[in-house]
């Protein structure tokens, strides 16, 4: 059936359509070229609305072992935020770490139709996929965590050559059905297993004698040569450490011309100036990002309130566990692949550090000029729950609103931020870029993030309102693959999503090597580590993202 969405103001920056009143025609889950009206087509009146493609969150911890450990620790949060009653209640809830059903519903209620789990540990990938399959209304994909895995570090340490690395990376991507490579604290998680407590970019790690820089560059080359669309998604060294702005700048300089995505860069933009030895490094970071077109970032904005931080970076989480709130935390070394640390946090605007973190995130959003290289995230749940996105959007779009909030934060923090001097307000076009077009482009999703013919019919109609928070919290309509799933901010239908993966080819010899590795070192058969296509979403299989070598 054809659906015509008519009379809305369309913002489709990927196709250079900015604020044009035009019809959108949908058929069989796709957008098709506009054509004269035909009998029996369904008409959706979009007058008074802003029409955008479905939202895409490229960094949100929604599934897998560490998320479930977060749920285990956050029973109080779960009890406080049950799912609303009604036909689409899944007996779940939670705000900081919502259950699968609640995750899909809350995302779809804000107009998001795809969300990417950015830290899939290989050994836990099957769990992550089973959990993602239980999330309704959004498409998903996982980024595989590499860079601390013993097999890789040994390959690099033994100077086996780039081809062996590429074969291994390709094998792992296919085995775990992931769509990009994430590095978390390169070499650092592994170093912590040998009792290393810190590892800077050019420091040599224990046992393998490798620097994070070398691990980073090796994997950058691998994803580039394999043609994985998204560049290395890097959670850099020294997360959260005052003074880490130096490391981050050095990392930008270390990327050797390869594209690089720096994730939750807010947590990596801290200086040591001032009497509290904690200051904003956002100006230097923004300047470096502006000057280096091969760098993209997502911010990892912090939002005040209770949340839980869940990260593969056990080295950093161990360092931070003393400030857990409430006082409990879980750490885990994982299967020669990586680790995880889950630490509840309560970000308070009355805390100097938290208040300044909030300001630093906003400074980064506002000082980095090219919206195509900034993606809107809170690093859910680490900086704050994804349900705070409408509020964050208003902070970006509404200077008086932002200033009013700035006036309420810790006084000394206010004195340490230049946020008040920044007059920029994001436009609707820019919001469409940072929440749709740009993430789709970097992930290589050609039929997403835009509204041109051939695109998936994921379309959102937001009622034009001066209060941008209210506007982005409750769209008038959300269509997922052409089906209406949300009306006036309420879920009206549940659909099944899909899972994105890349399947680069690898030399069959790598199969043999990994068979031996898994047999002898890991104590698990390689064939049981590998996830078959039929295991994805009850036999549906993955949606393969095209490689661009």
């Amino acid at each position, binding site marked *: 059936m054809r659906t015509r969405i008519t009379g809305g103001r369309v913002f489709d920056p990927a196709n250079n359509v900015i604020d044009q009143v035009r019809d959108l025609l949908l058929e069989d889950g796709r957008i098709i070229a506009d054509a004269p009206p035909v009998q029996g087509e369904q008409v959706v009146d979009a007058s008074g609305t802003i029409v955008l493609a479905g939202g895409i969150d490229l960094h949100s911890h929604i*599934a897998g*072992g560490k*998320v*479930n450990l977060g*749920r*285990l*620790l956050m*029973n109080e949060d*779960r009890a406080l935020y*049950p*799912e609303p*009653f*009604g036909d689409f*209640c*899944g*007996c*779940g*809830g939670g705000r900081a*770490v919502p*259950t*699968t*059903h*609640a995750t899909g519903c809350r995302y779809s209620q804000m107009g998001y139709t795809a969300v990417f789990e950015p830290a899939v*540990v290989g*050994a*836990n990938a*099957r*769990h992550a996929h*089973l*959990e993602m399959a*239980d999330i309704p209304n959004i498409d998903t994909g996982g980024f595989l965590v590499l860079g601390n895995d*013993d097999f890789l570090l040994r390959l690099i340490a033994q100077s086996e050559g780039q081809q062996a690395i590429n074969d291994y990376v390709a094998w792992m991507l296919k085995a775990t059905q992931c769509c990009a490579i994430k590095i978390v604290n390169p070499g650092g998680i592994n170093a*912590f*297993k*040998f*009792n290393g407590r810190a590892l800077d970019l050019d420091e040599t790690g224990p*046992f393998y004698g490798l620097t994070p820089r070398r691990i980073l560059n090796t994997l950058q080359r691998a994803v580039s040569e394999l043609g994985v669309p998204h560049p290395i998604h890097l959670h850099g060294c020294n997360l959260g450490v005052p003074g880490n702005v130096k490391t981050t700048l050095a990392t930008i300089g270390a990327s050797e011309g390869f594209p690089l995505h720096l994730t939750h860069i807010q947590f990596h933009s801290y200086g040591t100036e001032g009497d509290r030895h904690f200051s904003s490094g956002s100006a230097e970071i923004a300047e470096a990002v502006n000057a280096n077109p091969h760098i993209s970032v997502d911010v990892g904005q912090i939002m005040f309130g209770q949340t839980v931080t869940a990260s593969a970076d056990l080295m950093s989480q*161990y360092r931070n566990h003393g400030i857990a709130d409430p*006082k*409990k*935390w*879980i*750490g*885990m*070394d*994982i*299967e*020669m692949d990586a680790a995880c640390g*889950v630490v509840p946090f309560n970000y308070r605007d009355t805390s100097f550090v938290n208040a300044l973190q909030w300001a630093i995130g906003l400074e980064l959003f506002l000082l980095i000029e090219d919206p195509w290289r900034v993606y809107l995230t809170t690093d859910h749940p680490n900086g704050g729950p994804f349900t705070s996105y409408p509020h964050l959007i208003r902070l970006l779009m509404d200077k008086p609103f932002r200033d009013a909030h700035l006036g309420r934060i810790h006084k000394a923090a206010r004195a340490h931020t230049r946020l008040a001097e920044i007059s920029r307000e994001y436009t609707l076009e820019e919001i469409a870029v940072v929440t749709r077009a740009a993430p789709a482009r970097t992930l290589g999703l050609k039929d997403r993030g835009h509204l041109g013919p051939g695109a998936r019919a994921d379309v959102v109609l937001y009622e034009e309102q001066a209060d941008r928070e209210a506007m982005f919290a409750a769209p008038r309509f959300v269509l997922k693959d052409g089906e209406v799933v949300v009306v006036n901010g309420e879920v009206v239908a549940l659909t099944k999503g899909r899972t994105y993966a890349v399947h680069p080819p690898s030399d069959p010899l790598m199969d043999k090597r990994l068979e*031996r*590795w898994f047999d*002898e*070192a*890991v*104590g*698990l*058969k390689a*064939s*049981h580590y590998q996830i078959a296509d039929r*295991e994805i979403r009850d036999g549906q299989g993955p949606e393969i993202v095209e490689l661009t070598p």
Partner: protein
Amino acid sequence: MISGESITGGAARTVRDVVCGFCGLGCDDLEVTVAGRAITPRTACPEAARLLARSEAPPPVPRIKGAPATFEEAAAAAAGHLKAAHSAAFSGLGADLEGLRRLYDLAMASGASLDHAASSGLFANLERLARKGWIAATLAEVRNRCDVMVVFGDDPASAFNRFFSRAVPVRGKGAEGDAAPLFVTAPGRRQIAIVGGSLSEPSRRVLATHAVTEIIVAEHEVATAASVLSALVAGRAVDGLSGLPEATVTALAALAEQLKAARYAVFTWNAASLPAEDAPVVAGAASEAVDLLSVTTRAAVFPLGGRDNVTGAHQLALWRFGYPLRTAVGAGTARHVPELYSTTAALYDADLLLHASAFRPDAPPDFDRGPVIAIAHPDTVFAREPEVFIPVGTPGVDHGGHVFRMDSVVCLPLQALRPAELPSVAEAAAAILVSFGRGA
């Protein structure tokens, strides 16, 4: 990996690399011979061999009040009972994740409390894990890093037959570069200390090259010994406070010194085999010791458990409901009250029991307050004939599926070894759900 004939073929064939979903250790290198419907284990521990073996015998048919029925009739009868019930308890939950997903769907539709037959150890550990947390390691990390292991309680091999050979293998002379352990300085000789019962002879043989210390402690004193060890690691005085024999305290003091000198110490215990009131104490003491050691070196806990995919049932409950097991769901809500919704407690008030046990023929718990629906292993012997009995196939024997390993990280794919003649738990639960208008 299946060699020879296809799965439906008649000739005997050998199936290698069979994944085992029974005890929770997740061994995936078993070997069986399959001839028609008969399965003869070739390489498997005694427990797995017992649970994998199958004869040619045809499977039983479903029964309603003891009378043979079709699958559809049995499912409809089960749905009728569920609709009439006000307070249903789902017990057992011995199923793969696919089966559990459907059982949870059913519980959400009909309203029911959920608990697994093997959850007692899990809940003892949760008293520590959910309230304060811990630092844990997965099996491959233990294999490759652990240089000092402390075992509290009985010989783990009694419930997890191959635990020692998988967790602390010996790197033989001339081993290839991949052989575990990769990071232990003296790879053939790790320090293994048992604080509890004595080791079995087979375990002693497996551990022959390691430096094994057996600190024999009566079952009811294991928790005290664990607390003393933790205190000694902390450097606290324990003289005369514990009631333990002096020789035991001396041995524990020596062990504490070994732990402090270790590069990666691992503490393990099977909470399900410890006295109920002591298991949380042991989990707490082990976690405390890890916290203390972690200030200067590395250490981790490796709790044992996970029978019949209890870990999967726990994980699924967390991602579906945001709570562990012992939760009642229905009417859009979930209430987690372990004291009310453990199977024992739930059955005081329940007016229906649905028992699911696909891995082994475990009978439902005693229950006489209302109908019993058994979605169960075909060999189950019932003390009281259930109102509805739907015999189901076993995951990893009759059909594929997914189960979690005890470390809660690795999820394993089970494969069918023979053509299924019985429905899976997922199919049985889905058939019942049809009557609720929420069929598959």
